[in-house]
């Protein structure tokens, strides 16, 4: 079982890397057109300390932004899930806010909070990732079948008890589904800020410096590092989901 869970995805990754290598070699592409997997280990090794330092910065900023997005998204989703008026009022605002390309927001934030690079990056990660959480929680709460509420209301249960015992657990699968989307979005937010803002740090800045010095293998290495971090965080969410909402998973037959 565990063999299958590890070996199958691992084999898929290896096949992907092999196909990539073959594609580059067969076409004889130089590394400024497309680096091949064999170019990557030297790039990683050459900048190993920078990768560790910047990788950590990117990771903690993303997690911090995501954590704020979870708290804010949950609160907003609850407000919108329970009050129809607030839902009607906030939806257009929220959709409009989400529709604004975040790349255009980066310079505004960078100007607003000059020099606050950590803060700006976390803010960006948060702003880009709270939307799916808020929407899914509000939908989960507003579509709660009235009978679920009635079985407790008929006993004289308080609103808080109904929320704690019914609404919250019932919404958890939707919440985790949204969180999986938000994880990857948060990385996009972090990197947008790291790449665009001058004198940035983090993997995004490393990518930018690779671009400036025409170090193509480094640029590809950063992409792979980002993908690896994304996979890592994604599976942390999967693990949390199994703990808190494992009941929603149908046993495999």
């Amino acid at each position, binding site marked *: 079982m565990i063999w299958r869970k590890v070996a199958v995805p691992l084999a898929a990754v290896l096949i992907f890397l092999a196909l990539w290598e073959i594609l580059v070699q067969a076409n004889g592409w130089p590394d400024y057109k497309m680096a091949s997997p064999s170019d990557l280990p030297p790039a990683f090794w050459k900048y190993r300390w920078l990768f560790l330092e910047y990788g950590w910065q990117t990771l903690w900023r993303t997690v911090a932004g995501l954590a704020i997005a979870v708290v804010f998204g949950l609160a907003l989703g609850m407000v919108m899930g329970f009050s129809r008026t607030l839902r009607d009022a906030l939806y257009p605002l929220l959709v409009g806010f989400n529709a604004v390309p975040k790349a255009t927001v980066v310079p505004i934030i960078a100007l607003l909070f000059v020099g606050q690079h950590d803060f700006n990056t976390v803010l960006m990660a948060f702003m880009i990732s709270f939307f799916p959480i808020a929407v899914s929680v509000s939908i989960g709460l507003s579509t709660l*079948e009235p*009978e*679920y509420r*009635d*079985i*407790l*209301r*008929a*006993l*004289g*249960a308080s609103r808080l*008890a109904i929320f704690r*015992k*019914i609404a919250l*657990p*019932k919404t*958890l699968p939707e919440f985790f589904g949204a969180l999986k989307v938000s994880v990857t979005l948060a990385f996009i937010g972090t990197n947008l800020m790291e790449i665009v803002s001058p004198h940035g740090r983090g993997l995004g800045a490393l990518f930018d410096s690779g671009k400036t010095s025409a170090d193509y293998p480094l640029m590809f290495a950063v992409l792979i590092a980002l993908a690896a971090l994304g996979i890592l965080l994604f599976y942390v969410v999967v693990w949390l989901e199994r703990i808190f*909402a494992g*009941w*929603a998973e*149908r*046993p495999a037959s």
Partner: protein
Amino acid sequence: MADLIEIRHVTHAYATPKGPLPVLDDLSLSVPEGSFCAVVGPSGCGKSTLTRLIAGLMKPDRGEVWLHGERVKSPRATVGMAFQNPVLLEWRTILQNVVLPLEIVPTKLTQAQKEARARELLELVGLEGFEDKRPSELSGGMRQRASLCRAIVHRPEVLILDEPFGALDAFTREDLWQTMHALRAEEPFTSVLITHDLRESIFLADEVVVLSGRPATAQFRLPVPDTGPRTLDDLYTPQAAAMLNTLRHQIEIAQGRTPAAGTRKTLPDPAPTESATPEILP
């Protein structure tokens, strides 16, 4: 002994964009303590509204609902409810689902006592061995059994059943009718059952009330004679057939399909079948 449930001249209408939609019109109904009352009527005649009024989930526009000599103004812990949808909480085991009401109503029971009480009921309905399963692992009939246990675990005075067997297949339904009788023998409660199934109504109830079409009022009452413990065979006697026929005609009147009673053959069919249940108009 006074009636445990008393509904006095209740009139209710829902507000809709097209104006008020009257659903109940001067409806009066009383159920003596320990008695089982079945309410039948055409679809959409306000039967579910009636259950929500008794449970205190809604207030009537006019009229009063009394439970045990107290006017119902809000939900109370002495009521248990079961619906057509068993609404079990998927994240809880069957045992935890049955214990749920005991976590809400004020009780002096310890956790162990609560679980013992739940186990006792689950055994009574034939669910021993399934306590630690999730609802998704159970069949529809078993889920409905668990839902019934949850409805009575806190020993409610009033049990409100809103078509709890409606979505089950015919054989499972008959099994659950017998389970209902077994529960009633062990647990004293006064019950109101909403149903579309006339056989179900005469098998389970002490009195069947036919509601008229919307806005509903109590159109007809049929006492079901107490002839000792009932078995499914009792549904295939001439007396049962006569009762079913009477109810069927009353439903047709409620639906506005029969101009006047008595113009049709009123003798019981020799072998009443499923056709004894009238088709419900869309």
